[in-house]
């Protein structure tokens, strides 16, 4: 057995009762080469020491039902749906939480096992209030599937006739209906362990146990960052996004309204899953047709403002660097990205003192709203009062973001409604449209010119890759392809939680016209090394921020990309359910293939972007007008919440 030190306590913030603790694999003499034999339902398999019975059964193609288990989360072993018989053990064992460390024989469907599973399901149904056909998760509910799998045809232990709890609708993003909660605690583990936010926790004991917030406050009044990762991992309809589809339909039905929708890159890589297709099937152009048939007057690509973000945020970075390196003035570096609204709320709550690092550039969604209600209204002679802007996002936090009081720089609410991928799929179905069979059509002009750089905003590392493509070309005066084959900046790609990359600036070129009013030359950057960081999931963000505070290598960075959700936006809280590492990898593949197919792949080459700087934002990037419309400020919120509504 290896030496244990006092510091071996796992880095996990979930209590040990909600985890399967690691087994020391080197301790058992019965194992040879770290493998151990297991016999499940008479079939033998050799697995690495410490493999769970559930995992071993899956390798053998033996199905064991689960409920509280989730691939992304630590193992709790609390629902007891996955119990199996381990020969020689007095009681049944939770297969998800039982590490195989010696040769064992397992039976997965003895009479006792079948009866126990059926009882567990019956017990869960006895407290699960609500009717399946009046539930957002109808047909995509793990409890419903279990009931079907185990042939539940009556409520053995009854069924609640009255709700116990009122539904918490206080949040712009996440709605909690604890009447449907089955106490699997996936949301708790998501919040405390995956995201390290820790808003949700079990309170009370026994049948009074419920998932609650600090002092049982409404979700809108605690330090929830609205990432919605809990929604994606809830097996039932207990957690759902705040759904504005009725309002969106009403706007579409109103002939006086001009309804414009912008669509982010990730929904198009995910929406096919809502129509029974394989993850990673892109339906971008089919979706454009479907949106028009739903009745949207214009269908735009958020990639346009993603490109605009790169120009604005990149310019801001150059200005910060110039200030720090040439003028030797105090400047907050590294600069942090600002496109993920979950991340923004996270830093506002948890690291408010570091807000000066965050780029003042708005997120692409909010830039788009501001441009629609000013520039677009102007060139199309529309009264912005009659324009309704809808944003199709993979995100629940975008709903909170568009309702921030400061997001009214156009003089109106810049973005009226944030729709999730799931909600749009519902609208499309409601309109009788079979999305996969739609003919393809392009986005509308003038904001339909997509670039590959905009598309990859959907994946972790995408913003950084887009920024590098532009910065290298604008500063070095060379083609990015000279440095990276096919302009694929591989070092910033992939699902590692925290990434770090360096990019030497060997030679500099002339300052391009678009930036000429800001810096005289690039000589001060010659020979410098651009250091960048990337992280996704707020647990990783915390690691990076703590590293910066401790003066570690990320404190030397110039620019760091932060995304609140694991995998980036493609794993957002508004994306189709379920989610898993392989599903997110498939979506990422779809996004990168759309990038490589794009005609224009660099933000600064997007013709619509160049046009808006010559026609509208005439004082250039980070100029007066763009500051008014495209930049914002943040609120240091802290963790100690005052009166209601203070969040």
């Amino acid at each position: 057995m290896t030496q244990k030190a006092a510091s071996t306590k796992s880095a996990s913030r979930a209590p040990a009762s909600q985890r399967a603790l690691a087994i020391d694999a080197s301790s058992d003499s019965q194992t040879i080469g770290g493998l151990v034999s297991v016999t499940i339902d008479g079939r033998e398999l050799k697995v690495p020491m410490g493999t769970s019975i559930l995992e071993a059964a899956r390798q053998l193609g033996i199905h064991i039902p689960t409920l509280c288990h989730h691939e992304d989360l630590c193992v709790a072993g609390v629902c007891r749906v996955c119990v199996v018989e381990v020969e020689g053990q007095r009681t049944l064992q939770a297969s998800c939480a039982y590490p195989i460390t010696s040769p064992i024989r397992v039976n997965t469907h003895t009479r006792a096992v079948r009866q126990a599973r059926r009882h567990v399901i019956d017990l869960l149904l006895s407290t699960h209030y609500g009717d399946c056909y009046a539930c957002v998760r109808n047909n995509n509910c793990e409890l419903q599937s279990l009931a079907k799998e185990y042939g539940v045809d009556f409520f053995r232990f009854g069924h609640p006739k009255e709700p116990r709890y009122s539904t918490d609708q206080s949040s712009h993003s996440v709605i909690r209906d604890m009447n449907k909660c089955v106490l699997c605690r996936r949301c708790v583990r998501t919040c405390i362990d995956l995201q390290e936010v820790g808003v949700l926790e079990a309170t009370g004991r026994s049948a009074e146990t419920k998932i609650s917030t600090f002092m049982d406050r409404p979700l809108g009044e605690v330090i929830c960052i609205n990432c919605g990762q809990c929604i994606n991992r809830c097996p039932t309809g207990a957690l759902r996004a705040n759904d504005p589809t009725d309002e969106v339909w009403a706007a579409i039905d109103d002939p006086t309204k001009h309804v414009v929708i912008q669509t982010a890159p990730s929904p198009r890589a995910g929406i096919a899953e809502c129509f029974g297709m394989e993850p990673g099937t892109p339906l971008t152009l089919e979706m454009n047709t479907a949106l028009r048939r739903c009745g949207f007057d214009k269908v735009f690509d958020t990639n346009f403002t993603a490109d605009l973000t790169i120009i604005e945020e990149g310019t801001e970075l150059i200005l910060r660097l110039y200030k720090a390196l040439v003028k030797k003035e105090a400047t907050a570096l590294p600069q942090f990205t600002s496109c993920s609204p979950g991340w923004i709320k996270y830093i506002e709550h948890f690291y408010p003192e570091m807000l000066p690092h965050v780029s003042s550039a708005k997120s692409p969604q909010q830039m788009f709203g501001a441009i629609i209600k000013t520039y677009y209204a102007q060139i199309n002679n529309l009264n912005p009062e009659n324009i309704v802007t809808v944003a199709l996002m993979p995100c629940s936090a975008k709903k909170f973001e568009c309702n921030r009081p400061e997001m009214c720089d156009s003089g109106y609410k810049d973005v009226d409604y944030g729709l999730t991928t799931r909600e749009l799929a519902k609208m499309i179905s409601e309109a009788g449209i079979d999305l996969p069979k739609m003919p393809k059509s392009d986005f509308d002009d003038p904001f339909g010119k997509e670039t590959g750089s905009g598309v990859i905003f959907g994946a972790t590392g995408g913003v950084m890759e887009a920024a590098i493509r532009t910065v290298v070309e604008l500063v070095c005066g060379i083609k990015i392809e000279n440095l990276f084959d096919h302009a694929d900046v591989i070092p910033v790609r992939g699902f590692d939680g925290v990434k770090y990359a360096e990019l030497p600036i060997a030679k500099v070129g002339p300052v391009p016209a678009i930036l000429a009013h800001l810096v005289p030359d690039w000589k001060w950057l010659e020979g410098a090394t651009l250091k960048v960081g990337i992280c996704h999931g707020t647990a990783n963000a915390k690691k990076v921020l703590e590293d910066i505070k401790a003066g570690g290598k990320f404190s030397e960075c110039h620019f760091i990309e932060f995304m609140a959700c694991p995998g980036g936006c493609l794993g957002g809280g508004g994306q189709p359910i379920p989610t898993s590492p392989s599903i997110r990898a498939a979506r990422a593949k779809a996004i990168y293939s759309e990038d490589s197919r794009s005609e224009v792949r660099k933000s600064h080459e997007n013709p619509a972007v160049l046009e808006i700087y010559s026609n509208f934002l005439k004082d250039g990037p980070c100029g007066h007008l763009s500051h008014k419309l495209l930049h914002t400020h943040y609120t240091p919120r802290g963790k100690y919440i005052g009166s209601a509504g203070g969040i």
Partner: protein
Amino acid sequence: MTTKTNTLTFGSVEPGLGLKKAVAMSRADVIGEVGASGLKGRGGAGFPTSVKWNLAAAAVSDRKYVVCNADEGEPGTFKDRVILSDYIDLVLEGMTIAAYAIGASHGIIYLRGEYAYLLDGILQALADRREKGLLGASILGKDGFDLDIEVRLGCGAYVCGEETALIESLEGQRGEPRNRPPFPVDTGYMGLPTIVNNVETLAWVACIMAKGAAWFKGIGTEKSAGLKIFSVSGDCARPGVYEFPLGITVAQLLAEVGGEGAKAVQVGGASGRCIPAVEFGRALAFEDVPTGGSIIVFSEKRDMLEVAKNFLEFFVEESCGQCTPCREGNAKLLEGVALLEKGRCSMKYLKELCALGETMQLASKCGLGQSSPNAFLSIVAHFKNEIVGRTVRSNGHNGHGERSQS
């Protein structure tokens, strides 16, 4: 304390002798001696103490813990309270021997919140031992044998008597049992090797080291060696704390405490089993009726359905709420009792509830849920005629005594 007791061996053991003998032996020999005595955990589960110690001793770590489980919460159990108040030195000596045996340098007493009044006495005893060099560095001059003991108070949760929930509570978390394996002997408090032993177990350890394993092994039965402290309450003439050899029959015990003529005896507290009069010849021993020491006597006048209800109400209050069978199952069983009271529980549904009880025994995450249906199931098994077929009086009260004679 004025609780009635018979003569406890604890009073006649020479203080300090066990520890003195222990440190003169090798660690392995100390564990061997405890093993030879046949001592099994006195909290109720009956796990061989030396096996637990051996596992913890084999774990390689620069820090290990000895935890004394003083969270005596089982309904009808009050023997640890007497031991802690009258024989605290013996408990601390047992902890010290345990620490020596497994190589632990830290001890923690997890004291039941309701026993806070014992805290001063325990702290004083600890201070005295530090003074005498029985705690601290190089105890009894033994180089490298360092130990200090601290006391932590529980907060009233029954489940924290379960060793992994106790450890969670020590770590500042909700008191909820962990997944096992791994076991605390390998991954316990703060992820480090930890043994959790009951108050009484530790006191016996000190006695065994003082008087020798053979003395202890010579008492009791082959599989249940030694003496056991019982907490006796209920319908008997002389309730109190008693020491008996394991293997004593229920009838013998009842005769000692003035409980002859009882209808049933609840052995092992709420989580134990209800033994009817026809089975009073059974032995209180791990191989027959295992017990943590709680004996509750029910006379002919007691309504067994009320007894079942009382225990289930306790579990509905005390389930930690983590796993489904225990959280929801106990509530369903209690609802079933309410139906039985009204005479409205069909035999079919009663059978269903008993099957649910079996599921709870098999599929719950920890010992609490696994044992919570025991009382209900044994009462249904032995007193079915008493609990079914009840009617409701016109005034709405439970018609005990008006049950059908079927």
